[in-house]
């Protein structure tokens, strides 16, 4: 039926959307409709308040039938937002969905211009181009790609853990890949969580062990994704598994080896405790680590020399391990290849490096701490078993907590890290509890916009914690008056009391901001994502697609997308899991049929073959022409753009279509 194939001259219906005032305020929509109405091929031309609304879509369907339309053009917002909506409407109206073209006169016109005449002229030109283009459109079928049901979750922090569990509980098979020896991420290091003050370990470790135990989850810790190929529904991922020199299947986590290591005492800085504690060469990061498997650090283990196996050690650990034979000094790194349909990236953040702000004295004055260090210091299972003992062996009588270190600062990171206010208040509360010290918070603005957050702020005010509105200039150790001697002095303007103050304290806590992981750029390339200007991964749409990326089947969760607190990370992780399940349960995804094909007049010059990044083009010895494998083609059109004989065609972007668009935008009216 020609309505679907449209093999007769075009009968075009044109619709321009006011989008409330968003477009109408800067573009004279009635004028545009009037102008387009008199263009050749246009059967009817309307302007309407909200085209994307149900009535708007029904209007299109009605008109198609009533006026026997065979082409439709809508001028409204960005196709990335509503192209799908209108294609469906056109299809519902009985036309092939690709007899439709969309003109972006909101993001690209009304929102970015200031002169109504110019904006209207531009809108007309773009509409004119679309009218000319759409006449050349052909009927196309959407290609259905099957979705592999397994999911890869990258990163085992709270976001990754929650996403993995959600999927696993829904019966999906999940690979959870974590770079560190144990999952848990930053949350595992926290003592309590704001504003409820429930202990981080108590709420996190059950989820961790559930991950370790769940039959649907394959947990690969101490591992990294190094390669990703394929496309939505059919990704092939290579994971590098670093050697822990322990056979994970044989190790029972009894930790006898640790007890019997030739090093009687722990000697090496322990990363989990931010270097405040010590560990042995064979160790388990922390008591509740998941998996419950030890590992050996070849950099310091006596059986190695700077990572190279020497076998010079008495190996008392091996004896201790005995029959289990779990220790394997020969272990090498291995690469495992897996097939998944969807991927959730939850690679988290890194804390701001305070060395970049020397004026706060970190590293110069022993009693200056980072927030993460304090989390460990107040933690019952931390290096001091919860006793807040300063590096110089004293207990603090007064403590200054400096907010916004490495946030809201053009010289470091411009953004607000969103959690510092709250965790600073949490630490203030905990430190008060542990030390009964005088506590000063130095803040620029208090940002407590979450559920129960403002109430927490009130609670601290009641506890008598001091809040001084002023960004600290410097932390020094020189005394101006005797009471300051032997103390750290914070000089700050109390901007509310309107005085400059010098406040001597025993301990300074730097509330460091959140920034992208150092390797965020590499990860972004690995998964074919984009980064925002700050370096966090970019979501597909800030409001409507906050967990999607520009690559189908790849989703974001947690702080790798932007700083957020635990509730938000968990919520986002759930959303990402749901998005993944949408594809999995549907079983297939409809793909834009913008693939390319070769015409008969191909001269067989082969120049296109090396250009295709997906090796979709092969030379057919029989026909002496190029062949394009539609399944492999991703529709970039590079081969089309460079075919000397113009005998490759890209659906939806055929030469006539683009040429008529060019002529359209330039034609004089």
């Amino acid at each position: 039926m020609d309505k679907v194939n449209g093999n007769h001259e075009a009968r075009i219906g044109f619709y321009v959307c006011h989008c409330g005032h968003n477009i109408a305020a800067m573009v004279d929509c009635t004028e545009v409709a009037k102008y387009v109405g008199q263009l050749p091929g246009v059967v009817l031309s309307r302007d309407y308040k909200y085209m994307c609304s149900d009535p708007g879509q029904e209007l299109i369907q009605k008109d198609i039938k009533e006026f026997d339309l065979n082409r439709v053009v809508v001028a409204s917002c960005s196709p990335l937002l509503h192209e799908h909506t209108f294609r469906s409407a056109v299809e519902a109206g009985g036309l092939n969905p690709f007899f439709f073209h969309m003109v972006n006169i909101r993001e690209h016109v009304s929102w970015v211009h200031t002169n109504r005449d110019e904006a209207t002229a531009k809108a007309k030109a773009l509409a004119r181009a679309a009218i000319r283009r759409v006449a050349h459109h052909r009927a196309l079928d959407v290609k259905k790609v099957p979705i592999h049901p397994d999911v890869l979750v990258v990163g085992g922090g709270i976001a990754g853990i929650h996403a993995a569990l959600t999927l696993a509980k829904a019966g999906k098979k999940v690979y959870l890949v974590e770079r560190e020896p144990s999952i848990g991420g930053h949350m595992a290091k926290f003592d309590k969580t704001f504003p409820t003050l429930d202990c981080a370990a108590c709420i996190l470790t059950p989820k961790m062990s559930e991950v370790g135990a769940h039959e649907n989850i394959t947990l690969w810790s101490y591992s990294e994704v190094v390669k990703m190929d394929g496309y939505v529904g059919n990704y092939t991922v290579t994971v590098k598994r670093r050697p822990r020199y322990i056979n994970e299947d044989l190790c029972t986590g009894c930790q006898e080896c640790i007890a019997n290591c030739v090093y009687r005492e722990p000697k090496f800085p322990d990363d989990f405790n931010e270097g405040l504690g010590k560990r042995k060469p064979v160790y388990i990061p922390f008591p509740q680590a998941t998996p419950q498997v030890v590992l050996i650090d070849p950099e310091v283990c006596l059986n190695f020399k700077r990572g190279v196996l020497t076998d010079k050690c008495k190996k008392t650990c091996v004896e201790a391990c005995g029959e289990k034979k779990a220790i394997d000094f020969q272990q090498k790194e291995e690469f495992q290849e897996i097939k998944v349909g969807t991927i959730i990236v939850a690679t988290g953040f890194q804390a701001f490096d305070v060395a970049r702000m020397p004026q706060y004295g970190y590293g110069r004055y022993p009693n200056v701490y980072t927030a993460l260090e304090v989390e460990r210091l107040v933690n019952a299972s931390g290096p001091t078993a919860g006793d807040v003992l300063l590096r110089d062996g004293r207990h603090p009588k007064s403590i200054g907590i400096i907010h916004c270190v490495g946030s809201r600062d053009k010289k470091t990171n411009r953004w607000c890290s969103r959690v510092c206010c709250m965790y600073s208040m949490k630490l203030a509360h905990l430190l008060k509890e542990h030390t009964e010290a005088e506590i000063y918070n130095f803040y620029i603005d208090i940002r407590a916009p979450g559920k129960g957050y403002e109430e927490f702020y009130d609670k601290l005010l009641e506890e008598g914690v001091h809040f001084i509105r002023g960004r600290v200039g410097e932390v020094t150790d020189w005394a101006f008056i005797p009471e300051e001697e032997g103390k750290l002095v914070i000089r700050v303007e109390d901007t509310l009391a309107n005085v400059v103050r010098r406040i001597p304290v025993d301990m300074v806590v730097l509330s460091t901001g959140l920034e992208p992981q150092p390797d965020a750029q590499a990860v972004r390339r690995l998964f074919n994502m984009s980064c925002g200007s700050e370096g966090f991964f970019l979501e597909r749409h800030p409001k409507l697609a906050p967990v999607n990326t520009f690559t189908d089947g790849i989703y974001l969760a947690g702080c790798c997308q932007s700083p957020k607190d635990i509730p938000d990370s968990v919520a986002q992780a759930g959303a990402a899991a749901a998005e993944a399940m949408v594809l999995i349960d549907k079983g297939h995804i409809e793909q834009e049929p913008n693939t390319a094909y070769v015409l008969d007049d191909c001269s067989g010059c082969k120049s296109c073959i090396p250009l295709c990044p997906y090796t979709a083009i092969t030379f057919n010895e029989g026909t002496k022409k190029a062949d394009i494998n539609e399944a492999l083609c991703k529709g970039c059109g590079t081969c089309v753009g460079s075919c000397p004989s113009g005998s490759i065609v890209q659906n939806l972007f055929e030469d006539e279509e683009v040429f008529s668009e060019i002529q359209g935008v330039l034609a004089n009216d």
Partner: protein
Amino acid sequence: MTKEWTPRIVAFFCNWCTYTAADLAGVSRMKYAANTRTIRVMCSGRIDPQFVLEAFAKGADGVLIGGCHPNDCHYAEGNYKMLRRFRLLKRMLKDLGIAEERLRLEWISAAEGEKVKAVVNEMVRKLTALGPLDVPGKFADWDREISPLAAAAAAAPVEHEVAHA
């Protein structure tokens, strides 16, 4: 058109980076000159040199091509392919007597709405300084010059042959 001339720019933006960046500029309500007419392609690699030539031939004063940054192409390397053609095109346009500034290639990532604004405004400034290109007009003049000669040639074929003899 009565009001004073302003340049017309045809902009070919790749779907994944630059077109999205332009959307971002919109969402962030950045204001820039209204002289561009954007044409969306999936990848800058799709842009056929003929597209650019056609644009100039049909009266564009400038052509702007926007693609993903090197290494960031959604299709791995389409932007490199474009870059090669771009270099060729530039030389070709020079020979055709079209100033280089009239063709511009920019890598603009999905996050760089600010850059879209900056690039467009700057290009408009430059093109305004350069003045109209008006290739169609030039063609017209050319035809006007040719037609009498052609007519003459048609009118007096014999002399013509003599001239050759």
